[in-house]
């Protein structure tokens, strides 16, 4: 059975791209979220195997979302989607419980490697 994924990003472009990369590799995209609040709600509802989380999102940021999700499910597997120069934020996210990160611009192979690391 393929792993289920929740994709959280405020940009449709980014969500499409991540969905394509993961969908093309056989992962099942079960939900998408545009904000941190949506991400938390969707997680509780869908219980996906993996969450890809953008750091900067409207209303509630990715890091806060990570904290809330991990509080709800300590075993949650969250992959941060960051950009160069966001090191401090990524570190914070990891301390909050994120398992790994990828850096934009995305290279499909790197994204898949990270996903495999997180799910492995």
């Amino acid at each position, binding site marked *: 059975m393929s792993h289920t994924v929740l994709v959280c990003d405020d940009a449709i472009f980014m969500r499409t791209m991540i969905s394509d990369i993961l969908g093309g590799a056989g992962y099942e995209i079960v939900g998408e979220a545009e904000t941190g609040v949506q991400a938390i709600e969707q997680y509780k509802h869908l219980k996906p195997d993996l969450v890809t989380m953008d750091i900067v999102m409207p209303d509630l940021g990715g890091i806060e979302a990570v904290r809330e999700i991990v509080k709800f499910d300590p075993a949650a597997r969250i992959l941060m989607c*960051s950009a*160069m120069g*966001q*090191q*401090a934020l*990524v*570190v914070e996210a*990891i*301390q909050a419980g994120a*398992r*790994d*990160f990828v*850096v934009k611009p995305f290279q499909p192979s790197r994204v898949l*490697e*990270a996903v495999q*690391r997180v799910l*492995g």
Partner: protein
Amino acid sequence: MDLSQYTELFRAETRDHLTTLNRLLLEWEQHPDQAEALPGIFRAVHTMKGMAATMGYARVADLAHRAETLLDLLRTGGRAVTEEELELLFRTADGLEALVEATATGREAEIDVTPILAQLDAASTQREPPEQPGRAQRRISFVAAPVGTGRKVAVHLRADCLLKGARALIVLRRVEALGTVHGVEPAPTALASDGFDGRFSFRIDTQASGDQIEEEIRAAGDVETVRLDALEEGVPHEEEREAGRTRHIRVDLRRLDALMNVIGELVAARGRLEHLTVARRDPELADGVGVISSLTRQLQSEILQARMTPVWQVFDRFPRVVRDLSRQLGKQVQFRVEGKEIELDRAILDEIGDPLIHMLRNAVDHGIETPEVRVAAGKPAAGQVTLAALRDRETVVIIVSDDGRGIDRAKILAEAKRRGVVDEHAPEIADDQLLRVLGRSGFSTAGRVSEVSGRGVGVDVILTRMRELGGSVEIRSVPGEGSTFTLRLPPTLAIVRALLARVGGERYALPLTHVAETVELDEAHVTHFEGKQALLLRDAVLPLVHLREVLGVGGAPPTRRPVVVLQLGDRRTGLVIDRMEGQQEIVVKAFAPPRGTLPIFSGATVLGDGEPVLILDAGGLV
């Protein structure tokens, strides 16, 4: 994902690991009480297991896994490794090799390793410590490293790793799952700074084995090297050794061959262009062609360099061959390898492996005597077999020598007379005749056919192979003192400088590999020696060979003729030709001579002016 594209890479890399494995096992066998080779052996087996599992080669992975279990017990157990255990590990290496090759080529069913699997399991059971509790724990724990002090672990992230601080943090998070992590350097707060270069270390109190720690760290991604405490300090880590050296990539040899072919054509075309330019006398054209010539030469030298491979890549498997053989025959042999770093073109290196194995087998089987015979003859019980590579001017010389009984000339002479190879009144057989006699197809140095070398391959095969490679063979043998085979090879195969010799209406290319000098034929100094024509050259007698006669060219030769002095080791011959037509770089093309062709050609080439010519083989003329 389609893994078939990775098959070749898998095979190549596995072969490397198997070579390492065999080398380390031999080291271990020399010093069974020291286990210095063990971490390397373990790593080689472990890596192969991982790769095989990735490729889906379950049986290979299983064999490696069971070997790993035994190795793990060997490194935790107090007793030194036994001879039986080493022998089993050697056979495991063979089993892995056979199984990998068979599996990678879809012939997996042909190989049965169940006996080895059973023996590995039995050996592991014997090694199990008697007290059962906590057994599972001990199995995975890596010797010593007293719990409490913690093992020091140094990690180096890849240079292209992004956000190194965050990655380092992920590494730390992962190892925290294995035990208590402390003493992180630089301090965690400094990790997130932009100045962090990706090198950090920490201590960990854990029951986990070194391999587990490393595995966990590597699983964090973007890890270049992992170094574990003093326990393994004696064995620098593969990647660690590589660091600071030139970076290497693996290239399919066929690509280099294809590139070499293209460059060969380019060199030929350049020759043609240079030829035409001389005729045109156009300075601008000459300039342009000059630049192209120089660039082609650079390209040629680069690609030739890229093909150069140190001989150890082939030599490294020989100690194992000699060891197995001498055991099988009940002989004691000290095998020395010298000049491992000498480089040869990959294509040549690939071709000489089999002839060398044959020569080594001959040396051990027919050369070296049994310990009793040796001692009775006043020699040390253990025989010496040496394989040496060295550079001599433009050639690479490979020597296989032994201090055994030497070739039985009386027997060879009798056989040669029986076959009519030598005159029936010949009193004895000289070294250079020896080669000619032994080089006859089907002639073997052995009076008997043994299981070891009696496979119908003889010196003739070695000679033929050397000729194809543009090389030569010499034999020296002294009764009771041993034999020496000397191979001379051009360091590269495809492109050689050659002298163009004209005889009658034809031209021939003569590679400079074996050309010592050229002199003019001075009839006043021509004499006769042992019934043959010879030239007195600086007080030495140089036997002459007239290429006209050899080729059966009619007509009168020119009055002034040059002599090309060919040299193969100590032997020199003067080749009389009609005229020299300069030197040229030629691209050697494989050559399948029609039946009945004189055995004096080693290949063919196309000259700059487009004319095809045959390449003369010095070995066939001297």
